[in-house]
C-alpha cells in the first residue's frame, strides 16, 4: 500500500476491508472490496484541488525520471558530467530507445529516501546540472536524436556557490540552447515544475503534463509568504495561481494532458510510464514529419507568441 495523503483518509477503512477480504479469501469479496476502493479513489482524484495536486505531485512514491526510463524506455545509458566542474545527480540524462528510436532523455531526478535525496539535492540542480543538460542536448542535436525532457523539481538550488558558478547563466543558456535545437523536442512535466529551474529544460516543441502535475512561477509557499504574508497560506496561494495541468492547458501553455492511473501515478509506475511513453512517441511521430526549418519556425512562434496584454 502506498502512503496516504491527508485528503485520502477516507480510503483507510476501504483498504482495511480489502485486506480483510484478502485474509478471509473468496474472490467475490476481494473483487468488490477492490472495486469500492477504486471507486473512492476515482472520486477523490477526479476532483483534486490545486493544493491537493501539489501534494500528489510531490508524493514521495511518485515515479521519477528513472522510473519512466525503466518502465517506458529500453537500453538507457546514463551519461555523466558537465565537462567542466562536476557531475550533478539532480539532473540525469543519456540516450535510450523509445519504440526502436534513439532519443536523448534528460530529466530532473529526486531521491526516493533521505540518503538518495541528499545525493540528488532533492532534485534541485546546481549550474553544472543545467550545463550537463545543455551538453546532452547539443549531443542529441549533433546525432539527430530527438530530445525528451522530464520536469520535476522544486526549483534550481539557491546557494551562494550556485551564484558563484552562474546559476542564472546556466539556466538562461539551457533555455536558449533548447529553443534553437535542430531536432524535435518533447517535455513532460511529471511532477513539480518549479519556476526557472524547471523551465530550463521545458521549452520544447510540445509540453505535456501529467494529469496531477503542477507548474508554478514560484512555490505556493513562497507566493503565500509574499502575497498572503503568511507561508501557512500555501493552499490559498496554490488555489489562486493557476498551476494545474488543466489550467495551463486552458491558457494554451501546455499542449496535452497525460491521464494518470486511478489514484495517481504513484499507485502504478508501470502504467504511468506506459502512458507517458506512448504520449511522447506519438508527439515525436508527428514532429518528425515536419521539415526541420518548419519545426523551428513553429517553435519560435509558439514561444514568441505567449502573450496576454492589452494594446
Amino acid at each position, binding site marked *: 500500500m502506498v502512503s496516504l495523503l491527508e485528503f485520502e483518509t477516507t480510503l483507510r477503512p476501504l483498504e482495511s476491508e480489502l485486506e480483510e477480504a484478502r485474509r478471509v479469501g473468496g474472490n467475490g469479496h476481494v473483487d468488490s472490496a477492490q472495486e469500492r476502493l477504486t471507486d473512492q479513489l476515482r472520486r477523490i482524484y477526479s476532483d483534486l484541488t490545486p493544493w491537493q495536486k501539489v501534494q500528489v505531485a510531490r508524493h514521495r512514491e511518485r515515479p521519477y525520471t528513472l522510473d519512466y526510463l525503466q518502465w517506458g524506455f529500453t537500453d538507457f545509458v546514463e551519461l555523466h558530467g558537465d565537462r567542466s566542474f562536476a557531475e550533478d545527480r539532480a539532473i540525469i540524462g543519456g540516450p535510450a530507445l523509445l519504440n526502436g528510436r534513439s532519443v536523448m532523455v534528460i530529466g530532473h531526478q529526486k531521491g526516493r529516501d533521505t540518503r538518495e535525496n541528499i545525493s540528488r539535492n532533492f532534485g534541485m540542480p546546481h549550474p553544472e546540472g543545467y550545463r550537463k543538460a545543455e551538453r546532452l542536448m547539443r549531443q542529441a*542535436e549533433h546525432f539527430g536524436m530527438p530530445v525528451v525532457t522530464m520536469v520535476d523539481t522544486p526549483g534550481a*538550488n*539557491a*546557494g*551562494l556557490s*550556485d*551564484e*558563484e*558558478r*552562474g*546559476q*542564472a*547563466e546556466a*539556466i*538562461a*543558456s539551457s*533555455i*536558449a*540552447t533548447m*529553443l*534553437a*535545437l*535542430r531536432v524535435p523536442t518533447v517535455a513532460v512535466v511529471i511532477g513539480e515544475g518549479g*519556476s*526557472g529551474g524547471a*523551465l*530550463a529544460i521545458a*521549452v520544447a516543441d510540445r509540453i505535456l503534463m501529467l494529469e496531477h502535475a503542477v*507548474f*508554478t*512561477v*514560484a512555490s505556493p509557499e513562497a*507566493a503565500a509568504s*509574499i*502575497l*498572503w*504574508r503568511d507561508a501557512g497560506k500555501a493552499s*490559498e*496561494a496554490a488555489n*489562486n*495561481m*493557476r*498551476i494545474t495541468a488543466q489550467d*495551463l492547458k486552458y*491558457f494554451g*501553455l501546455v499542449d496535452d494532458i497525460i491521464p494518470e492511473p486511478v489514484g495517481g501515478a504513484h499507485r502504478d509506475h508501470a502504467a504511468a510510464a506506459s502512458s507517458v511513453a506512448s504520449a511522447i512517441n506519438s508527439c515525436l511521430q508527428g514532429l518528425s514529419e515536419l521539415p*526541420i*526549418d518548419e519545426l*523551428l*519556425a513553429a*517553435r*519560435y512562434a509558439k*514561444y*514568441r507568441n*505567449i*502573450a*496576454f*496584454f*492589452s*494594446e
Partner: protein
Amino acid sequence: MKEIFKRHPRYAHAPEAFEGMPDNLWVRCPQCRELLYAKEQESTLRVCSKCKYHFPVSAHERIAMTVDEDSFREYGQGVRAADPLGFRSPSQNYSEKLTEYAQEAGTNEAFIYGTARIEGQDVVIGAVEFKFCGGSMGAAAGEKIARAMDLAVEKRYPLVIFAAGGGARMQEGVISLMQMAKTLAALDRLRDAGLPFFSVMVDPCLGGTTASYAMMGDVTIAEPGAYIGFAGKRVIEQTIRQKLPQNAARAEFLQEHGMVDLVVPRAELPATLGRLVRLFVSCNREERRPVGEPARV
C-alpha cells in the same frame, strides 16, 4: 510603493533614495550616510560624490543619461498588462494594482524601449522600470522586451538593454514565467541577424531577468555595486543558513566569477557603449549563418 519594499526587504535602503526627500535640499547616501546636495544629484548622474554609490534612477533617466541628447524615440507605449488569471490576494487585486504601478512609475509597464543614438551611432535601447511592480516581467513587459529585439532586427541596429528586477510577476503565474522563453526566442533572431546585444545589469537584477535575456548579452556589463544573481539575498541566506558577506553577488563579485565582462560606472557608460558599438559593427559581419541554423548562445 512602500509595499513593494516591505515585501522585498533586501532593497531596504532604496525607498529613501527613490523618494529623494523632494521637499528637502539634501539627500542622504544610504551607503556612506553622507548628506548630498539634492540639486547636484543630476550633474553627478545620481552617484554619491563621496563613496560612488549609484542611486537608483528611473528607466527614462537611465536612457537619457546614456544616449545622445534628445535622440531617444520611444516605441510601444500602448502595451499594457492584462490580468489573465483574475488574480486576487488579501493584499491586492492585481488589476487595480496595475493602475497604481503606472502612476507611481510614470510608465505603462515595467519596460520602455525605442531608438536612440550613442556617440552618433544608431541603437535600439530599452530599460526596465523598477518602480513598476519591482521591474517584474509580466506578459506586457515581456512583449515589449521581445519587440525591442524585433525592432533591432528590423532596423539592423545593435541592442542595449538596462536589465533589472526579479523577473517573474507572480500575479501572472506561468504566463509570466514563460516570458523568459519568449525573450530568449526573440533574442535568437537578433543573433541570427548578427547584431550585438549589450546587456547592462543594474541593481537589483535577479531571477527570471538574469536567468533569461540579461545574462545572454554578447557583452555583459554591470553597474558598480549592483546585486546580480539568480536568487535574492534572503533566499540564499535561507538556503545556506548564514549571512551573506556584503560583496556577495555584487557586480564585482560576478566579474571575479566570470559572469560579467565589464563593471562600468554610470559616467563612463556612454563612452564604453560607443566604443563597443564601433567594434562590433565595424567588423561588417557578412551573414554566413544560414537562416534557422542553431544559435550558439
